[in-house]
């Protein structure tokens, strides 16, 4: 799953979608780090109480002490893809998933105060699971009392931007967000169809739909003499069932809208009184489908009236 191809694609995905953090770093499973090893996360309130007790510049002194205790990053880690934009100083943050599923954050800055803010956030967020990080409200930032607008989303609010960046990393590290790490694909061979990547996996399961649902559909269609035309862009769940049913009831057609129209007219001419049309609203072909649908409806009515007439004649 962590193939090099997948990682490169993932970084393109991240870059295209403006996910600057981790854009070119593979997701690392640091097997040696346990939840106990990583510094236990400290609640915001607990850490903030130290700052609230301090006055004026003492608050910043405390912050800088936190900064001094933060392990500096290597030059390679202080790279563009780890940089947090929106700070007047340079700030870098990385995130890794520990073996126990909690995040380990690291950070650095060329400004002592920014480094201190980084350290505070790392103390409060490292050791939480990705989902727990995502639930942290930005209002927590105001607890420290650094500025009146600490919780304001602003281009230049470094503290806020650091928290946002850490949340973005958490999003990428959320289990199931593995779609970012592997490009979804279906491999079709003579013997089997193999899917990889979450999206492909979820689509592939519709190739074998629920047999009971297919039985019910075939029964209903044949009993009521209903023909079905459906578009390629329908939900895969619907297509899966229809494709399976089509092996037993021949009047099911899945195609593009032009062919759908032709098949519908054919079915109407063959006497099918009810037509069910499964179509996607966004498909422009509805422009040329409409007159065809009208014609099909007209043919169905015509066929119905011919049958009635024949019945009348017979009696």
């Amino acid at each position: 799953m962590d193939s090099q191809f997948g990682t490169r694609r993932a970084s393109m995905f991240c870059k295209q979608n403006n996910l600057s953090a981790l854009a070119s770093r593979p997701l690392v499973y640091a097997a040696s780090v346990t939840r106990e090893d990583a510094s236990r996360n400290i609640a915001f309130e607990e850490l903030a109480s130290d700052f609230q007790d301090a006055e004026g510049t003492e608050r910043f002194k405390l912050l800088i002490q936190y900064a001094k205790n933060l392990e500096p990053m290597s030059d390679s880690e202080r790279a563009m893809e780890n940089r947090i934009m929106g700070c007047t100083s340079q700030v870098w943050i990385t995130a890794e998933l520990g073996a126990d599923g909690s995040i380990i954050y690291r950070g650095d800055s060329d400004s002592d105060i920014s480094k201190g803010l980084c350290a505070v956030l790392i103390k409060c967020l490292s050791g939480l699971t990705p989902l727990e990080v995502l639930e942290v409200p930005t209002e927590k930032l105001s607890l420290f009392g650094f500025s009146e607008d600490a919780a304001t989303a602003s281009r230049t609010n470094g503290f806020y931007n650091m928290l946002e960046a850490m949340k973005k990393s958490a999003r990428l590290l959320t289990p199931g967000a593995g779609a970012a790490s592997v490009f979804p694909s279906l491999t079709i061979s003579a013997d089997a169809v193999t899917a990889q990547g979450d999206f492909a996996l979820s689509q592939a399961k519709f190739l074998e739909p629920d047999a009971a649902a297919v039985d019910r559909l075939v029964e209903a269609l044949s009993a009521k003499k209903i023909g079905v035309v459906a578009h390629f862009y329908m939900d895969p769940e619907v297509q899966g069932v229809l494709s399976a049913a089509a092996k037993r009831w021949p009047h099911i057609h899945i195609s593009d809208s032009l062919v759908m129209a032709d098949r519908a007219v054919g079915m109407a001419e063959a006497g099918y009184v009810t037509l069910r049309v499964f179509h996607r609203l966004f498909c422009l072909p509805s422009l040329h489908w409409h007159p065809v649908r009208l014609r099909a409806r007209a043919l169905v009515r015509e066929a119905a009236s011919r049958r009635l007439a024949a019945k009348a004649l017979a009696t």
Partner: protein
Amino acid sequence: MNTHISQPRLRSYHFRTSPESGTTFASRVPLLTPQTKHVSHGSPFVVEWPRHASRNSHVLSVCATNDVSIETDLASEVRADFPLLDQEVYGKPLVYLDNAATSQKPKQVLDVLAAYYTGYNSNVHRGVHNLSAKSTTAYEQAREQVARFVNADSWKEIVYTRNASEAINLVANTWGAENIGEGDEIVLSVMEHHSNIVPWQLLAKRTGAVLRFVGLTEDERLDMEELRGLVNSRTKLISIAHVSNTLGCVNPVEEIVSLAKEVDAKVLLDACQSVPHMPVDVQALGCDWLVASGHKMCAPTGIGFLWGKYELLDSMPPWMGGGEMIADVFLEESTYAEPPSRFEAGTPAIGEAIGLGAACEYLSAIGMDRVYQYETEIGEYLHQKLSEVEGIRIYGPAPDSSSGIERAALCSFTAEGVHATDLATILDQSGIAIRSGHHCTQPLHRHLGINATARASLYVYNTRAEVDAFVEGLRETISFFKDI
């Protein structure tokens, strides 16, 4: 070209003399004209003569030196005019040293702005009713005040814009679009503000023009020798700052203009940091366009201007289209107004423009020579005091009157071992407001090999005592970081 000028003609003059500075200038009072039948004399919109606080009305703490000259009193004189300065930040008196970013506004300008909105707010050029005529007259009167402030030939040469950035974009998208082609060269410098780089980058991308950048000398001034080498027959434009907002150096405009004339190139002058602080005379400077922002010169935000030689403005096609800038509008096409209306689409920032005029009058009443003299002195004082702090590195040339090296009253600097932003954050705790970052001159910082600088920038209301407070605070801040 069809013309359409709807501004009323102003005819009569009152000459007034400033009791403080002795400067005499003309202030116009509107007369009745066919277009302005409804204007009455003595209307509240006529700008009242700015009154300065008396010399003794507001005395700050004692100056650190005994070197008190007449000019040193200027800040004490005008300070009471600026109500915002009288406040505390975290329990300490505010020391505002971020004037290169924006200036504070005197009561005189604030009153004019309030008078507009409470008394005669009305759309300009469009109505014949009383209020509309009043606002039109005040708006156009302000244009004349701005024209006088820079010694333009006529009010027609002043185009109101939102700010200097918009003014530069205006030139790039009109004259630039028509006259700059593939392979043509635009000469800029590494010290330019982003607003005097990015519009030309956008133009170059569209037209295939080439941008050339003049570097710095060893003492961090504009390298005139390099400029001489860069200018050639393909040069169409030199766009340059008059005064650098980071280095504080004053560039030799007349010399640059004569270089440009040799190759028939035009010169655009970014005067954002000069117009507020020294007398600026477009006739003497000889540039083709000049841009400035109102908010850096005691005027409200949202207003600035482009000055251009009339014939040049007249040759420029419109940029923003809409109401006001037209003569006649048909369904398929329109004809356009003469400058400056041609470049002023839509409803302008009327009150703010009137405020800009009032700011020009306020500064003229002090006398720009006097402003310049004061700033030279206090700028030198700042530079000297800052140089005495250990571990501080100031960027830009040291002022040296003997060799004619001028320097604006601002200093960008770094401190050894302390990030500029950290300095500014701790200084803020003492009520001292300076700026940190790249000051919209990222290329300059890269050229100097630094990430960020801190900058203290002064204006007419900053006193020596404030400079002392800043330097003292800076020393304390540096110790703060050393002691942790």
